[in-house]
């Protein structure tokens, strides 16, 4: 093997290693994802330690929530994440229309989540429950509304990607945009996976 071949092989191996090591999508979204994880993490832990000082109030207030709504919403977000994975797999094979189809499924499931959350929020506001009612509801409304806004933002990102995919804007060689949106959507999913048992189930 001559020197030129060795240099070429080393460069190719380096590129492959970089691809394996690097995060999916644009790195900028990961700075945002890590910042959001930190913000939610602080809120999750603050909820748990605030509850530790007033267990009876938290347990009684928690029982007023619709756990079935939370359960259906968890299934909706997990399934939407699955659709996103299939969308990314489709575009890696150059299947733009299939990618748009799977992402549209994820978008609709996100819409289901939003619809159920709006019904839940409406029921609480109709019962005159606000953030100042007690510490539990302060955390419940803050956490779920903060997450609700992330779902909305994720749906806007998905809608933009779906439109571009339908126009053939992505290909098997150029799918960073799809992976970037997918990474954000999966973050929205796993934050809810923690939020649901913490606020609705664990007593």
């Amino acid at each position, binding site marked *: 093997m001559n020197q030129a071949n060795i240099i070429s092989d080393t460069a190719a191996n380096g590129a492959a290693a970089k691809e*394996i*090591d690097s*995060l*999916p999508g644009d790195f900028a979204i990961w700075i945002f994802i890590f910042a959001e994880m930190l913000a939610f*993490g602080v809120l999750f832990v603050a909820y*748990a330690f605030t509850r*530790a000082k007033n267990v009876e109030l938290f347990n009684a207030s928690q029982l007023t929530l619709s756990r079935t709504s939370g359960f259906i919403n968890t299934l909706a977000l997990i399934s939407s994440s*699955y659709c996103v*994975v299939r969308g990314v797999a489709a575009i890696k094979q150059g299947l733009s229309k299939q990618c748009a189809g799977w992402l549209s499924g994820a978008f609709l499931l996100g819409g289901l989540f939003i619809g159920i959350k709006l019904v839940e929020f409406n029921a609480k506001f109709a019962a005159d429950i606000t953030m100042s009612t007690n510490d539990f509801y302060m955390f419940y409304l803050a956490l779920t509304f903060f997450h609700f806004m992330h779902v909305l933002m994720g749906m806007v990102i998905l809608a933009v990607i779906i439109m571009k995919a339908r126009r053939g804007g992505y290909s098997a060689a150029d799918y960073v945009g799809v992976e970037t949106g997918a990474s954000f959507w*999966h973050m929205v999913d796993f934050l809810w996976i923690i939020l649901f048992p913490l606020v609705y189930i664990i007593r």
Partner: protein
Amino acid sequence: MKNTFTTIIWLALILLTTMTYSIDLIGMSGKATMLALLAITMLKSQMVANYFMGLRKCGTLWRGIMFGYFLIVGSLIAIAYLMAEH
């Protein structure tokens, strides 16, 4: 094959979520239940990060950050629940 694996992960997540909901429905509570529910939650989150986000193909640093996050947040929540004043 890859899609089949993804589908299996999705079904496992659905099953674990249904388990979480069922534990609540049958009225199980207590410290052991809380720890089991937290373990299921952290397992599900790790599954989404590894298999849906695709972090299992990333470097140790990124997988370590994600695993560390779930471990620290989960542990702090568990400590808070264990030291709760009833």
